[in-house]
């Protein structure tokens, strides 16, 4: 026994140190996931028997298909818009313009504020009595009626961008700031104009950073729950659809909700895997391109 202890004490201590974390992981994540998976194959409201009905009903239903499409549409759209917004923003903020500390703080605001509060403020701002519509109606000719933003699909996408672009922006900014300025100077010395430097040196080098940040934006937008719950109106992405299954019907439809949850988790994992592969490939290409660019 003592020999066993002497030989394995180090490993056992490590295991003991990891025990609380592992207990938490299994109790609060793994077992709940497993339970969800099992529940999704049970007939509704029963504790025995196996069925695929929960899946087929959701996946065959045109409404179910629309929910999946909508979730992807919102997540991909807001990710693309976040990238389009973040790159120019990061390029400007890198220059340490006057007040750049204030603007950097502004970018962090949507990250720290609970999504619920952000959505509430946006609903007030874009509502028929909000400042946005007041401005449009008083200063833009030909607009007499309030423009509908709240509870529309483009409005919801804008809300997502507002809430989740900081992930992309902060990562892009940090990629830009760790960039070696001498590479750009070398480009300029070699006769490239600013646009060419940007297009052929800066952008390829920061692409991995942009992609890494946009993964975070995508994940947040894909899993968004509180925002579409209060600001989505009739547009219900997957997360809200899951909640509706247990909140609206009586008795709650746990098996249907579990099936949708499994579909959502699987879609997220598959999409993330594809995305990571893309990021890795882009990273390799960027390193090669930058090497060539630097030499030239």
């Amino acid at each position: 026994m003592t020999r066993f202890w002497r030989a394995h004490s180090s490993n056992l201590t490590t295991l003991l140190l990891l025990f609380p974390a592992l207990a938490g992981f299994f109790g609060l994540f793994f077992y709940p996931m497993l339970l969800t998976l099992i529940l999704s194959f049970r007939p509704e409201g029963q504790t025995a028997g196996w069925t695929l009905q929960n899946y087929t009903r959701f996946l065959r239903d045109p409404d179910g298909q629309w929910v999946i499409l909508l979730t992807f549409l919102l997540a991909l759209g807001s990710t693309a818009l976040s990238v389009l917004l973040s790159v120019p923003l990061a390029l400007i903020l890198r220059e340490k313009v006057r007040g750049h500390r204030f603007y950097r703080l502004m970018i962090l605001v949507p990250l720290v504020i609970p999504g619920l509060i952000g959505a509430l403020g946006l609903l007030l701002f874009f509502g028929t009595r909000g400042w946005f519509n007041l401005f449009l109606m008083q200063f833009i000719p030909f607009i007499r009626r309030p423009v509908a933003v709240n509870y529309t699909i483009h409005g919801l996408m804008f809300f997502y961008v507002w809430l989740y672009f900081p992930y992309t922006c902060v990562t892009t900014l940090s990629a830009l700031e760790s960039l070696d300025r001498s590479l750009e100077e070398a480009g300029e010395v070699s006769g490239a104009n600013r646009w060419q430097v940007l297009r052929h040196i800066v952008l390829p080098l920061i692409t991995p950073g942009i992609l890494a940040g946009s993964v975070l934006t995508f994940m947040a937008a894909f899993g968004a729950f509180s925002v579409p719950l209060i600001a989505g109106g009739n547009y219900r992405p997957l997360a809200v659809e899951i909640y509706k299954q247990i909140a609206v019907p009586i008795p709650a439809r746990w098996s249907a909700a579990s099936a949708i949850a499994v579909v959502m988790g699987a879609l997220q994992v598959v999409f993330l895997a594809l995305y990571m592969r893309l990021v890795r490939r882009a990273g390799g290409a960027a390193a090669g391109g930058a090497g060539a660019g630097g030499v030239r």
Partner: protein
Amino acid sequence: MRLLRAYLRGLWDGKLLLGYTLLASLSLLILAPFLMIALRSVGKGWFGRLWLPPELTLEWYRWAVEVGNIPEVMKNTLIIGVIAVAVSTVIGIFAGWAFGRRQMPGKEVLMALILLPRMIPPITYALGVAKIFYTLDLVDTYLGVALAHVSVCAPYAILVLSATFEGLDERVLEAAGVCGANTLKRFFYVVLPLIMPGILASMIFSFTHSYNEFTLTLLTYGPHTVTLPIRTYLAVGDGYWEITSAMAVIMVLPSLAILAMIQRRAEPEKLVGGFKGV
């Protein structure tokens, strides 16, 4: 040549002007919703095409406190937050020490596994957590809601603390030993001051997560454990925008204090790693 240079400079200045316009309008767009919440919470009779409320009042705050039961809700939020922070910090210290300072087989795999809850939308495992808590009678208890929060807080605590412990320099400890400090002294005078900022950061981030956590709370709360986000959400459902705004202001003030703290102490990249859309 001179003309060309002037032209280029003009372009450059023009670009800066464009940049300032972008920055200013973005800041406006980020701040305006909060200004509207703040004004709505103190405004009275704000109807029609008015830019500002015609009358100021604190009535809605009185309503929020009396009808919305804010003091009780605040107490629940704090108790749950403290329990969640305590549990996830303990988990984080133990696991962080193992990950940061010890050799073990399959370290990367284990780390990836423990960080998995951050990669998957909370609603997918919140369902199972709720189902388990119903059978264990943990729904609508402080411990239950706090434990649900731990599943979000703990991975981040582990990440921050293992980085902290990894950064601890062995040579500093040896130097203290050479200078005659015993184990106890070494711990209190050398190790503790070195790891304290990391532990504090982990606690602040854990608390922020718990304070803002919505999804897991929504599936495990009950009448005795209404937290601030849930209370605000319920008020949105009731449709009284003024009272909801007052609650939102009460809820957001601590977040702003935390933002100020983070801005001063930590790098924003860490924030991005730690925060997930709720």
